């Protein structure tokens, strides 16, 4: 169980989900379902709050950092997580935001904090991010973070409507440091 609690300023907080978050998390997913369905592989299997409880439980039991909420002024606005590939010493970041919370740069800020964490605290060599080719908003996050586009896995994941081409982005530790102005 790996717990994170980061104050990013301006009322924005990243915090690991606890079981007591299940109702609020499910309610946000449910209210945002139509917008999430085209992109999120977990949308079809999140149909009741029991599914959300099982998800939080599995996150708390895992050694990754997959289950974290993005809170603004104490209200849940989205989710973000980091999964580890220990053999490769790399990690993958994933995120979503609820309806009405898009376009405010919160995901980019939270991702930047995760990249700091991955490289400074976990000592990872590389971070990855995958987004559907047609998901322009998600791809814009990767691009704002300075991640490099590395290829497209054709039909690389399956969502409710079928398979999606996935563009993969990568950034190496030295590239992130250079971006922060370190040498």
């Amino acid at each position, binding site marked *: 169980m790996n717990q994170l609690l980061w104050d990013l300023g301006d009322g924005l907080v990243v915090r690991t989900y606890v079981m007591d978050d299940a109702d609020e998390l499910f309610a946000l997913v449910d209210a945002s379902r139509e917008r999430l369905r085209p992109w999120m*592989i977990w949308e079809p299997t999140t149909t009741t709050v029991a599914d959300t409880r099982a998800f939080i439980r599995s996150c708390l039991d895992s050694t990754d950092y997959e289950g974290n909420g993005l809170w603004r002024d104490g209200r849940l606005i989205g989710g973000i997580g980091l999964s580890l590939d220990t*053999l*490769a*010493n*790399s990690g993958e970041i994933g995120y979503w935001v609820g309806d009405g919370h898009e376009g405010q740069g919160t995901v980019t800020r939270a991702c930047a904090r995760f990249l700091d964490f991955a490289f400074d605290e976990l000592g990872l*060599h*590389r971070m*990855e991010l995958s987004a559907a080719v047609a998901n322009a908003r998600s791809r814009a996050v990767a691009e704002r973070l300075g991640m*490099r586009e*590395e*290829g*497209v*896995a*054709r*039909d*690389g*994941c*399956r969502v409710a409507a079928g*398979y999606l081409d996935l563009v*993969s982005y*990568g950034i*190496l530790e030295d590239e992130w440091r250079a971006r922060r102005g370190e040498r």
Partner: protein
Amino acid sequence: MRPDLHIELGGGAILRAFTDADAEALFSVIEANRVRLARWFPWVDAATDASSQVAWIEARAGDPRSLDANGIWVGDQLAGGCDLLIRPVDDIGELGFWLDEEFVGRGLVTRAAQLLIACGFEQEELHRVQLRAGVENLRSRAVAKRLKMREEGVMRGAGKVGGGMYVDLAMYGLLVDDWRLTR
């Protein structure tokens, strides 16, 4: 793994699932090829003795759907391995293979991979098979080409290999529809 997997490769070679009884043979072939294999693969350092291989074989037995933990045998001599790890969430398989130096250049891996991929598409109804190979691992990449897999990108520094070094990985994909057309 499928404990009953047994596929004739022709010329007296077979592909069959490892059992605990193969752990000694498996470890001694890895040991004899340690530096060669560690040039490209992350798992070599974890192969410290025969019992580490028993643990690996037994861990793989917990995944009844994947077509993995298989040895390529020529007569009673272990020549290498070929695996297809299945991601149940989207029916995508990840191919992997390696050979003892003595058996390189006989087409064993290409035949084993062809038949394992056929199993994956026909019996497991996979949608996509993918492979990642070191950019400079020209033999592996030649296998991908013979399997009619399409190169989809290069993931920089995505492979951690022996001695803590990182290699760029070329990513290949083969979709079931394309595979049917090549048959």
